[in-house]
């Protein structure tokens, strides 16, 4: 007897969370929650201080756009669909709308909650900066936009050509960023214009699939990979094939590696870092560290020491993520077939790991240098860098090495 697609959805969702639970436990044991709570407390205190003495020229609207736009526009969809569904579920396409509605509800709720949390975090700043629009109107408008985006993102997924999908996505994000800026500056006309753009995306007449199977399967695979990659920093998990992006702007790093036997694994791991999701996460984390560090250093949080703490937190987080590199290719048959000793693999991982974490640490340090030093907090900036360098150059390599030699062989 065939199960209803609704029951299928529920069992798949439950299975995912059941599988993930143990990894959440590992994460909890790693001490990350404690650090996050401390960072949150520090953040709230710093934020409170900022609200009390908000500089007149503080870019309140810009911060609002940066905080709210992604929360409103980003509308992921967990469908739990897999490659095998092309064989088993496609014949039941007619029943699929009920299945997709469940996914929309599931992600919609989370998205709305995220928007509300974003509002709760941002609106005090907006209020302190003498925002002109009533807070109630802002919340209402942002929620309306979120609902439109949930539907528009679905319609966008249905479109047949990838090019049109991309154009619509850019349009969706750009128009909404503009609309949020307008909303915060109390010009509601542009907000209405944005709603019309979103409605146009929703009611577009471009060729589209009833259920965009391949797009959804790919999106689901990417999401799963992100979870896998995140969890792999805390525990050993069965790896899925990596998700690859060319990242042409970083290609120079691999091109610089000399053609030499001793560089073979170094070449491989450099490409792995640049092109897999690990590189993507690292880039986003560095950007976030840069942004957060910028705000903290600009405010010289807690006489600069808070700012230094924020900096170190991000250096540490990039280090945590980079640990996943040692897991790459561990189960590859070529590791045993290539005429290369295992030590060269380990030293290649260490070389790539050290360079990447050093580069991240230096980039994230820039705002500390730019803002803290002129305000007379040079000691804090330099001390933060010194601690980061000890961590990156001495402590991390040791722990990565220990981890690699602890589990040398799995076949």
């Amino acid at each position: 007897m065939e199960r209803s697609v609704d029951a299928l959805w529920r069992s798949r969702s439950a299975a995912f969370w059941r599988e993930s639970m143990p990894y959440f436990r590992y994460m909890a044991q790693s001490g990350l929650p404690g650090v996050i709570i401390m960072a949150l407390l520090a953040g709230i205190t710093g934020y409170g201080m900022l609200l009390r003495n908000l500089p007149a020229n503080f870019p309140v609207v810009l911060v609002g756009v940066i905080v709210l736009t992604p929360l409103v526009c980003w509308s992921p969809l967990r469908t739990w669909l897999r490659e095998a569904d092309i064989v088993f579920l496609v014949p039941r396409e007619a029943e699929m709308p009920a299945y997709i509605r469940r996914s929309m509800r599931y992600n919609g709720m989370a998205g709305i909650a995220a928007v509300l949390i974003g509002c709760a975090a941002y609106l005090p700043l907006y209020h302190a900066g003498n925002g002109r629009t009533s807070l109630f109107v802002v919340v209402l408008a942002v929620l309306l936009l979120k609902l439109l985006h949930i539907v528009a993102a679905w319609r966008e997924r249905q479109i047949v050509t990838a090019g049109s999908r991309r154009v619509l996505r850019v349009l969706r994000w750009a128009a909404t960023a503009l609309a949020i800026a307008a909303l915060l500056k109390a010009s509601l006309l542009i907000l209405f214009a944005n709603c019309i753009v979103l409605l146009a995306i929703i009611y577009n007449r471009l060729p589209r699939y009833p259920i965009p199977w391949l797009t959804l399967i790919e999106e689901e695979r990417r999401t799963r990979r992100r979870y896998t990659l995140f969890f792999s920093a805390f525990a050993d998990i069965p790896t899925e094939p990596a998700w690859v992006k060319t990242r042409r702007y970083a290609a120079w790093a691999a091109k610089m590696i000399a053609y030499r036997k001793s560089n073979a694994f170094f070449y491989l791991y450099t490409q792995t870092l640049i092109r897999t999701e690990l590189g993507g996460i690292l880039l986003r984390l560095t950007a976030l560290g840069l942004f957060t560090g910028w705000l903290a250093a600009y405010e010289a949080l807690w006489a600069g020491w808070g700012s230094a703490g924020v900096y170190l937190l991000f250096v540490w987080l990039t280090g945590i993520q980079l640990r996943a590199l040692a897991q790459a290719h561990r189960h590859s048959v070529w590791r045993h077939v290539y005429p290369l000793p295992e030590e060269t693999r380990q030293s290649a991982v260490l070389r790539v790991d050290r360079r990447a974490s050093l580069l991240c640490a230096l980039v994230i340090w820039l705002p500390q240098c730019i803002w803290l030093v002129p305000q007379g907090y040079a000691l804090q900036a330099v001390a933060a860098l010194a601690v980061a360098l000890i961590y990156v150059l001495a402590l991390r390599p040791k722990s990565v090495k220990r981890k690699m030699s602890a589990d040398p062989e799995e076949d």
Partner: protein
Amino acid sequence: MDSVLTVKGLTGGYSPRRPVLHDLSFEVGAGEMVGLIGLNGAGKSTAIKHILGLMQPHAGEIRIGGHTLAEQPDTYRSSLAYVPESPLLFDELTVEEHLRLTGMAYNVQESLYEQRSESLLKEFYMAPKRGAFAAHLSKGMRQKVMIMNALLARPALYVIDEPFLGLDPLAIRSLLDKLVEVTKEGSAVFMSSHILATVESYCSRFIVLHQGVIVAQGTLQDVCRAAGMPEDRSAGVLEEAFYRLVTGKANGGGEGAHHHGTFG
């Protein structure tokens, strides 16, 4: 003829209590192409894993160029290139970068690497795909990448597991031509395949593996003799001999004589 691969008394498998391979002994000489044939589950892939050093023999030893893996790991591994049954590519490397990595790993001189990779890309009609990632290649193309990598390394021994699956007719032809070329240059090829007609026309010797035991090995005549067949030189005789050997009708002849089932 110098022996490139020597397997002596190999007993092995995943668990020492339940060996898959029983006392295998054979050699593959320089300039020779040897076909390993057997039903699914006969132990072909397990035998190959032992040769690659991915599995430890329970008894017996394997030498490549006179060395065991334990004695000279680097020489042992440099002497051997492997083409797996299903292509195992790095997702984050393009076709060309796979070749570069192999060139580095096998210490192929840079100028030679450039020359060989260009000609391989051309011969296997992969030049337009040189910048493509594994995810954007068809199964056959991925298999071609594996084969090109093995050929780039130019080792003394090629271990090839079921190379023809998914390959288009042109690629099969290029592969066979290349294998003939490398054997002429003195390399040894050890190839497992279910395509008996091809194995029969290209290999000079055969090893018939059945339930982990070698039931026949040698030239076509040797295999025919073991199958209780008259020495026949017509095409398709290997398939008949194989059928008799694995169905236990080796000396009975008769009823199975015209069976043409698939062995895959």
